[in-house]
């Protein structure tokens, strides 16, 4: 997936659309990441000044949630479920097979809600059931 490059004016207009929300910090970070693929370093100060909260508060939220990222998103992302139901179906070996075999960022997630069709993975946003290296490679094409 490709995302537009960071643009503080666009970011400001995204934040403006959230101004009426009673708890805007997390949704602001999420909205910026959805648009730009990550949270740019300038975003912290921007959110802090827009919503009149401290930078420390914004930074605290940014670093708490596993999913928020501060580096640009790679072109391809593979998330492999590393939780118990998928472990029971070989997720550990799938993880090591996939790492190194694909030119994508490979990371772990904990349960994708597809535990009856384990192991599960997500390739560039698409959920794969009964995942294998071959299926993941195919999806990356």
């Amino acid at each position, binding site marked *: 997936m490709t995302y537009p490059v960071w643009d503080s004016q666009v970011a400001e207009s995204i934040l403006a659309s959230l101004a009426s929300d009673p708890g805007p910090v997390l949704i602001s970070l999420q909205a910026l990441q959805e648009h730009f693929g990550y949270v740019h370093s300038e975003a912290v100060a921007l959110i802090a000044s827009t919503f009149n909260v401290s930078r420390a508060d914004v930074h605290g939220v940014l670093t708490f949630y*596993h999913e928020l990222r501060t580096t640009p998103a790679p072109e391809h992302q593979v998330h492999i479920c590393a939780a118990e139901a998928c*472990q029971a*179906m070989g997720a550990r070996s799938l993880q090591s097979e996939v790492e190194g075999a694909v030119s994508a960022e490979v990371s772990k997630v904990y*349960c*994708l809600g597809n535990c009856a069709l*384990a192991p599960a993975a997500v390739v560039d946003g698409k959920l794969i059931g009964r995942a294998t290296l071959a299926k993941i490679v195919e999806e990356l094409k």
Partner: protein
Amino acid sequence: MKIFVPNDSAARSIGADAIAVAITAEAAKRGVAIELVRNGTRGALWLETLVEVEVGGERIAYGPTTADDVASLFDAKFYEGGSHPLSLGATEKIEWFAKQDRVTFSRVGVNSPLDLEGYISLGGYAGLKKALSLSADAVVQEVLDSGLRGRGGAGFPAGIKWKTVLGAQADQKYVCCNADEGDSGTFADRILMEADPFTLIEGMTIAGTAVGATIGYIYIRSEYPDAIAAMQGAITVATCAGYLGKNICGSGNDFDLHVRVGAGSYVCGEETAMLESIEGKRGVIRSKPPLPALAGLFGKPTIINNVLTLASVPAILADGAAAYAARGVGRSLGTQIFQLAGNIKRGGIVETGFGITLDALINGFGGGTFTGKPLRAIQIGGPLGAYFGVEKLDVSMDYESLIAAGGMLGHGGVVLFDESVNLAEQAKFAMEFCSIESCGKCTPCRIGSTRGVETIVKIMSSRDAAEIAEQKSLLLDLCEVMRDGSLCAMGGLTPLPVKSALENFPSDFEGAAK
């Protein structure tokens, strides 16, 4: 003629979209007039992709199908109910469904998820109608009398929580639905939201009108994009039809619903961390008191319930508390939506009264392991739940019996492992997961879990019996400290999978091979 192909994310994860495309193309090629309906899944994930046709008012099923089967299905005139090697007969009569007792999930998978008319034709909104004809006290009493307990994990009686919120005086109250569903082995919240979102909306609306809350939030984990879209779509449809918003159904009650999305944090499923997260903050656990029922979201009285708890309410109101409470056993009344997962042949949703044995669930419905190798371990209740061995197959699946057996029901997920599992490895994972997901507030949870991983690694790699014994006793001490010194169940219950693994599978903790 109507053909149904599920659009559930699990069905799509193994190719349902390709089947829908192939059916459309094949029908056009052969000049067969069809109406393709994308329904939700019925929860038999082992039969996905389950294609259905409507013939003479009856639904006929075929499965599990792949796109490669489509041409032969047309050859067999499946659209007229023709016979084919994948024929399963009438859907309702498939044993796996027929043996269930679907109450909360009665509408799941029948229609297209956003088809409001279809929803109403299957009894939808009868519960809200009933609720609006009763006093607030009477609605809460109905929920109390049904015996409904929280399905999110703790099993607290829903009616008592509602009563507290009803009795609280405030200018604003909230209803928050916990749809964080972080437990491994669980997916019922997701399926309900994707396949039958109006039932959850109806349950939340009943909760809101009963206690005087005019705003609701559904906190859905980000791993569930399709559930998020389905809920947002259904909220729009319900709002346009007057079932949400101002003066719902002409009752004078207002109720607005908002979706909030998580950001990949297990601990945000704990109710107070969820409130922090909805408020846009770090998902750190709040100390109780105050109870969220009195000072919850933005400091206001708040009902917090799991998806399945709220989704059970419409049926309770529509059919009466007594009908619901007639199901189940002891203090576990009504039905439980079990989720069969992991190394299992027939995985999916099994809704049935509490009190079914574990054996009937995983061998009867589940058909044993997927690999066909001997079953060795069963984890019930997610990452904080115990590991049982096959000697526990007779346990009755209800809140009290599971606790008595040294486990817990949690959110109703049941995960099977075959003989290849190493329980020391699983115990190590439990500690690792706790260290990754800890909110950081208490030392036993934050640091103890890391020490736990190190200790188990030592046990696994040691060849010295004395050292192994010493590390095991250290591990047990650590479990005790975590259990007693943690503010919430993240740190407090991580010892459960660890200790149950140690107790039920001692041979996996004997160190490295000599």
